C-alpha cells in the first residue's frame, strides 16, 4: 500500500504475476477446474451429502517438504451437509 492507501504498481504487478504463474505452472484452465469440481462432487456424493454451493476447488502453492521450493497444490474445500450416509456403501 502506498501512503494514501492506494496499491502501488509494484504490488499490482506482483499480485497479477502470482496469479498468472499459478495457472501457467499448473497448466490448468478454469474449465478443467470446473470439471474436477463436478467429478469430486460425484464421488463424494456417493458417501455423504455435500453442500454444493460451498464447494471450492482451486490451485495454489505450498512449500515442498522435500526440496524446500514452492510447488503447486490443489485445494478442495468441501463442506458436508449431512454425515448421515457416511460410511454406507452404495455399490
Amino acid at each position, binding site marked *: 500500500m*502506498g501512503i494514501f492507501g492506494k496499491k*502501488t*504498481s*509494484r*504490488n499490482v*504487478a*506482483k499480485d*497479477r*504475476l*502470482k496469479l*498468472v*504463474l499459478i495457472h*501457467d*505452472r499448473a497448466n490448468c484452465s478454469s474449465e478443467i477446474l470446473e470439471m474436477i469440481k463436478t467429478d469430486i462432487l460425484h464421488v463424494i456424493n456417493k458417501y455423504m451429502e455435500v453442500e454444493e454451493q460451498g464447494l471450492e476447488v482451486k490451485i495454489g502453492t505450498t512449500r515442498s517438504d522435500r526440496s524446500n*521450493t*514452492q510447488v503447486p497444490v490443489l485445494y478442495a474445500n468441501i463442506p458436508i451437509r449431512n454425515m448421515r450416509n457416511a460410511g454406507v456403501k452404495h455399490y
Partner: protein
Amino acid sequence: MSEVIVITSGKGGVGKTTTSANIGTGLAMLDKKVVLLDADIGLRNLDVVMGLENRIVYNVIDVIEGNCRLKQALIKDKKYPNLFLLPAAQTRDKDAVTPEQMKKLCEHLKEEFDYIIIDCPAGIEQGFKNAIAGADKAIVVTTPEVSAIRDADRIIGLLEANDLHDSRLIVNRIRVDMVKRGDMMSVDDVIEILAIELIGTIPDDENIVISTNNGDPIVNNTSCPAGKAYFNISKRIIGHEVPFMEFQSEKGLFGKLRSIMGFNN
C-alpha cells in the same frame, strides 16, 4: 574442471547477449580460459557487443559441418588473449544445428577451455533446445517486469524438465528510484516469485548503452555500477564469496555513503 554455462531468459531484449559478453570477459579477467558461443543462429549479435564483428571468417555452423577446424573459427578477443568468440552463422537458421551436434561441440570445447558461455536465443523452440543441450548449468536473466518474469518462470520449468537443476538468477535493469517509489518490483519480489537462487543484480546503467556502442564490455570499467555488478557475478561463478549489496534499501545518509563508496551492486 570445465563448465558449460548457458545464458537464457525466454523473453527477448532482457540482456542475454550483454550478460554473456560481460560474464565471459569477467571470467577472462579472472585468468580463466573462456569461449563465448553465440547460439543465436541467424540473428548473431554477440560479435558486435564484443566489438569483434570485423574479424569473422568462419562460424559455428562451419565447425559443425566440418568446413573448417575449430581453431580457424575461434576469434581471439582484442584485450584478453585467453578469451575467444565462436560466432553464430548469420545466413542460416536455427534448424541448421541439432541438440546432439551442440552437445558434441560443447564436449570438444571443454577440452580446451575452463568456461564455455552460451548465449541462448529468445524463445523456447529449436534454438533454445540447441543452446541448452550441452550445458552443465544455466543462468536465467530477467528484468523486474511482469512479462520477463513470466517467461523466466517458463524457462526455469523447461530447464528442470531437461535436467538442468539449480539455475541461478540475474535480475537486470533494476532502478532503485522506482523500487523506492513502489513502481518497480524489487529483487526480493522477483526471487520470491521465481524461487531460484540469485547470482547477481545489475542496476539500470546508461553506461551499458555506451559500452555496447563502442563494442567494449562494461565489465572492463568496474568503476561504474553495472560493470562492477558483472565482475561480481563472474567472481561468484568461480566460487568467490562476494556479498550481495542491497541497493534497494539505500536510505538516508548511510545509504548515500554506501553508494558513493561504490558498495552497491
